[in-house]
C-alpha cells in the first residue's frame, strides 16, 4: 500500500474504492473457488475429521479476510477503521472461545 492511501483526505473519505473492477471480479472468483473446495471436501472420503475441520476454518478465515480487505476496502482505507473493526472482532472471538470453554465444547480437540 502506498503512502497516499493511508493519508486521510477529503477525496479519500467518501470513496475508498481503490480496487479496480477487475480486482473485484478476481476476488469473487477466488471466493467461489474456496467455497467450492470447502463443499467438495465434505464429500471426499478418508479425510481425518480434525484435518477437515482445520481446512474449513482456514478457508473460512481466508474468505472473511478477502471480503473485508477488498470488498469493504479495509486494505486501502485509513488504519483507524481497521482498529475500529478488528478490536471488537478479536473480543468477539474471545467471547466465542470463552463460552465454549465454559461449556466444555470443543470442535478441534477431543473432549477429555
Amino acid at each position: 500500500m502506498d503512502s497516499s492511501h493511508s493519508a486521510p483526505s477529503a477525496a479519500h473519505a467518501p470513496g475508498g474504492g481503490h480496487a479496480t473492477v477487475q480486482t473485484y471480479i478476481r476476488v469473487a472468483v477466488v471466493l467461489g473457488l474456496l467455497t467450492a473446495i470447502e463443499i467438495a471436501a465434505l464429500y471426499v472420503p478418508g479425510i481425518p475429521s480434525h484435518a477437515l475441520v482445520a481446512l474449513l476454518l482456514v478457508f473460512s478465515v481466508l474468505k472473511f479476510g478477502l471480503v473485508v480487505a477488498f470488498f469493504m476496502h479495509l486494505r486501502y482505507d485509513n488504519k483507524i477503521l481497521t482498529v475500529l473493526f478488528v478490536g471488537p472482532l478479536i473480543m468477539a472471538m474471545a467471547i466465542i472461545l470463552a463460552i465454549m470453554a465454559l461449556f466444555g465444547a470443543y470442535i478441534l480437540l477431543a473432549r477429555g
Partner: protein
Amino acid sequence: MAAEHAAVAHDPNIGCTGLDHRKMGMWAFLGSECMFFGSLIGTYLAYKGKSINGPGPHEILNIPLTSLSAFVLLMSSLLMVLALAAVQRDDMKWGKIWLFMTALFGAGFVGFQCYEFTHFVHLGLTLQTNLFGSTFFVLTGFHGAHVTGGVIWLLSLWVLALRGRLGAQDSLKVEICGLYWHFVDIVWIAIFTLIYLIP
C-alpha cells in the same frame, strides 16, 4: 497537510481524523455487531451436540441447498461493489442495475431461508424442540433479519437512483450500505462453516 485541513474544514461530516463521521459510525456499529453475533455463535457452539432429543443437525440440514444460498449471498457482495464502482464514476444506468441485482440476490437468500425454516418446522424442529432448534433459529433468524434490513436499504437506494436523487456526490451513502451488506455476508461465511459444514 494544512491545505487538506482547510479544504475539509467546512464539511461538518469530516472530523479531525480526516474521516467521514458516518463511515466511522458504520464501522463502530459493525464492531458492535461482531460482539452480538459472536455471542450467538458461541452459544450455538457451546450447546452443539447437547440436545437430548432430535432432530439434530445431521438429520435435518440440507448442505447442497444451503451451499447454493451461501453462493448467492457471496455473489451479491460482488454485485454490491460493482454498484458502488458504477455510482462513484456517475454511471447511474449500471449503478441502478447493480443495486437492484444486489437486492434481488439478497431477497433470494431470504427466500431460501424462509423455505428452510418452513421445511424444518414441518420436520418437527422448532424453537422449543431442543437446544439445537433454539440456538439454530435464533442465530440464523437474526442473520436473516439483518439481510432483510439490508435488502430494504438497497431498495431504498435504488428508488432514490430511479428518481434521479442518487449520483456520484452521494457515493458515500452507497458505500456505507455496502459496508453493512458485506458484513452480513462475512457473518454468513462464519455461520455457514460453523453450523453447516463442520461435522
